[in-house]
């Protein structure tokens, strides 16, 4: 038996979510009295692979196959299923990000394994196997029983902390046969965003709404984000208007995020917006309207004009950080 965790890397370096997944998988393995095994697909060197061991993983199955250079959901599913069978995995854990959302449901069908998607905590119990997940776009949570022998969990990003437990993991290089004729998705072009903190990865997110008044007013907001090592985000009308790029749109129909700290600046706090940010650990609201619904979701608030408050905040951060 084992708990299998599907990791992701970016140009040979593990994404932060891989360590979150490894930490989570190790805890689930503990609950089941078994070990966590990580699967890595790509060109990742041994020292990077071994980092997974720092988060409790006992073994790392490493697959480096040119045919898997690009993501083809069918081909990847076959590989994960093969490793899950080889490792007799009872639980398979993936991220609830774009990749995980594409792969986990396929695996579920392939292995006849129930899936708990968008889980944000350790399983509530292992017998029956019950997970805690978001429902009704954050307006409720569900206790969901996974009724099959093999179970799949997709973990919401940023919802589980890194837990360091050095285990001294071993690396097993494994080769798989990929049927190239089955690859029907061809990647023609890749446009990478470089140098920017990913909004789904970020621990702090600074977000602006229509109350920012104009696309020309974003400078202090961006400066605040830079000082805090934060990603920038926005409400839907702001991206619809083209004030900011679509990648920044958070909410029910945009990105669903769970940073430690979310600044909502000039954002009213419509239900559809809150749906995407309600899992943030802390929300700070800055708004001229004391009755804005966003204050109902926030732990800290400033009633005031963003254009006046933001420059002062920037100064305050400089002062505090300077010390």
């Amino acid at each position, binding site marked *: 038996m084992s708990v299998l965790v599907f990791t992701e890397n970016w140009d040979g370096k593990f994404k932060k979510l891989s360590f979150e997944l490894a930490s989570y998988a190790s805890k689930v393995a503990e609950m089941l009295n078994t070990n966590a095994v990580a699967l890595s697909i790509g060109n990742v060197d041994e020292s990077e692979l071994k980092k997974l061991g720092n988060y409790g993983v006992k073994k790392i199955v490493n697959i480096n196959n040119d045919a898997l250079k690009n*993501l*083809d*959901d*069918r081909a990847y599913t076959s590989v994960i299923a093969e490793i899950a069978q080889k490792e007799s995995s009872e639980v398979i854990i993936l991220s609830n*990000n*774009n*990749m995980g*959302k*594409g*792969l*986990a*449901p*396929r695996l*579920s*069908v392939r292995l006849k394994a129930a*899936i708990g*998607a968008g889980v944000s905590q350790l399983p509530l119990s292992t017998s029956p196997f019950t997970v805690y997940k*978001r*429902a*009704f*776009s*954050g*307006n*409720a949570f*569900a*206790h*969901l*029983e*996974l009724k*099959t022998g093999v179970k799949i969990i997709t973990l919401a990003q940023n919802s589980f902390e890194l837990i360091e437990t050095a285990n001294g993991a071993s690396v097993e290089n494994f080769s798989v046969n990929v049927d190239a004729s089955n690859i*029907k*998705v*061809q*990647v*023609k*072009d*890749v*446009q990478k965003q470089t140098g920017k903190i*990913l909004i789904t990865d970020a621990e*702090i997110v600074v977000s602006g709404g229509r109350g920012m008044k104009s696309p020309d007013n974003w400078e202090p907001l961006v400066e605040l984000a830079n000082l805090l090592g934060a990603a920038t985000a926005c409400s839907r009308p702001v991206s*619809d208007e083209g004030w900011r790029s679509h*990648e920044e749109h958070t909410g*029910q*129909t945009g990105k669903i995020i769970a940073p430690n700290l979310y600044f909502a600046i000039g954002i009213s706090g*419509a*239900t559809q917006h809150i*749906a995407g940010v309600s899992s943030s*650990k802390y929300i*700070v*609201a800055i708004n001229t309207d004391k009755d804005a619904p966003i204050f*109902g979701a926030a732990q*800290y*608030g*400033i*009633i005031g*004009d963003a254009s006046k*408050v933001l420059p*002062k*905040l920037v100064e*305050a951060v400089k002062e505090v950080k300077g010390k």
Partner: protein
Amino acid sequence: MKILVCISNVPDTTTKVKFVEGNTKLDTTGIQWVINPWDELSLTRALELKDDASTGVKSVSVAHVGSIAAEPTIRKALAIGADDAIRVNAEPADAYYVASQLAEVIKKEQFDIVICGIESSDFNGSTVGSMLSELLDYPSVSAVSSLKIENGQVVISREIDGGKEIVHVSTPFVAVVQKGIAKEPRIAAMRGIMMARTKPIKLYEPIAVEPLTQVVSFEMPKPRASCKFVDAENPKQLIELLQNEAKVI
């Protein structure tokens, strides 16, 4: 080319959800039902493709797994412009159950492009679309933010963490779509509403499928601590609270 858009019937996000029967079931009284926002956008994109003769898209159908209570939502999709609809007459037990019913119908009806939304705003599973592609053994592309047909070739832009990829895929396939697929959902015009009354809704009875999951109970989100206000003249205090009290910066 034939396009199918799978639609989910969901409570409007702004309606307050409540639960009954020991918190195991949604209380449907007073709920405003709508087409799942993603599916509305998918339908809009499918209709845009059909409007453009160069794409070769000849028809846009919608499919829904649900009871007769969902018919107003299906009619709405027809009013927006879908040519016809399919309803599998069953209570959606879980994502696997729904995907299995849809797969069965698609095998019979055959489509070139099947579009599903990235998630249904009720159970937030993000699973039906990809399950469906696996059940059909079709290729699938997930996180689709743009879908075009250029000289008969499907050209898709999909979001990856930290960027996007332009991909080509052969038909038939399943596209799981997200933000960007269409700008604003198309709204039904009077003429569309009139026409929708006579458009066909084909009824299928469900096949026997054992769901893989079971909701044990629902609960409401834990109430958050009330908001602590800081004077607008003194934002430094906020930074200090974030540093010393919340310990997040």
